[in-house]
């Protein structure tokens, strides 16, 4: 093309920047696994490799979670059936625990990698 001008190249580059920025929405899914907790209408993010405890209040009381040795579980909850506590420890990306009565949703995000000796993703 004999008629390509400077402005065309600038617009093209700006578009590439825009597209590159839009790909950023995919980038979050990889990297270090992190614990995401939705409660009280907000979302908290915790590093799975840092031992800590946290409490969240909901409609029926308080739900406490504990992160320990790269695993997370519900330590205590004021809900009736304690299903969330019975769910036990979770440690890999894609796993989740929900306390429905107390509106607390705990999930682990990060790149899902097949574990040696783990259950196959498809035929569970």
């Amino acid at each position, binding site marked *: 093309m004999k*008629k390509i001008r400077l402005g065309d190249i600038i617009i093209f580059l700006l578009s590439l920047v825009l597209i590159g920025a839009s790909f950023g929405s995919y980038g979050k899914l990889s990297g270090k696994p992190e614990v995401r907790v939705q409660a009280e209408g907000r979302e908290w993010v915790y590093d799975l490799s840092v031992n800590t405890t946290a409490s969240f209040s909901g409609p029926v009381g308080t739900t406490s979670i504990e992160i320990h040795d790269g695993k997370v579980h519900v330590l205590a909850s004021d809900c009736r059936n304690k299903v969330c506590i019975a769910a036990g420890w979770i440690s890999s990306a894609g796993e989740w625990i929900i306390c429905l009565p107390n509106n607390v949703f705990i999930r682990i995000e990060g790149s899902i990698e097949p574990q040696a000796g783990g259950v196959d993703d498809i035929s569970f």
Partner: protein
Amino acid sequence: MTYPSSSPKVRIEFVALLAACALFLSTVEYLIPKPVPFMRIGLANLPLIIGLGLLTKREYILLALLKVLGQGLITGTIFSYIILFSIAGTFASTLLMYIVYRFFKQWVSLIGVSIAGAMASNVAQLTLSQYLLFGAAAKLIAPPFLVVGLISSIILGVFAQQFEQNSAWYRSLREGSL
């Protein structure tokens, strides 16, 4: 003024001709299978790109309106919410293309105009889909939409640029001899 000074009747017929062209290209585009209905190649935008150098501001807005209505008619979405996407996309792109063409004409060819229009259209539609359809997940469909928009707009822009340079019809319109 860069547009010809023909009689009002000739001018309105000329807008109608470009709108009819957009209608026809909408039909052609409708024949091409697409993964999701609102992922468009944007063939119908070709008359809008070519019309830039020929129409006044009011004629140009009229052409955009006719394109939205024609496209809605062809795809059968004129009374559904999808028409909102068409309106948002078309008017965002016409606005930006008009601004780019009007104020940066010396530095930008129709290829740049076309890319700018496609990006404006896609961003407007993705923003709208965030509020109407997908919520925060709208950003996950952004990359394929923007990539398709960029590629198709470059092809359309090259075509429009060639047309502007080589068409005797276009030249005679610019000179106001039709």
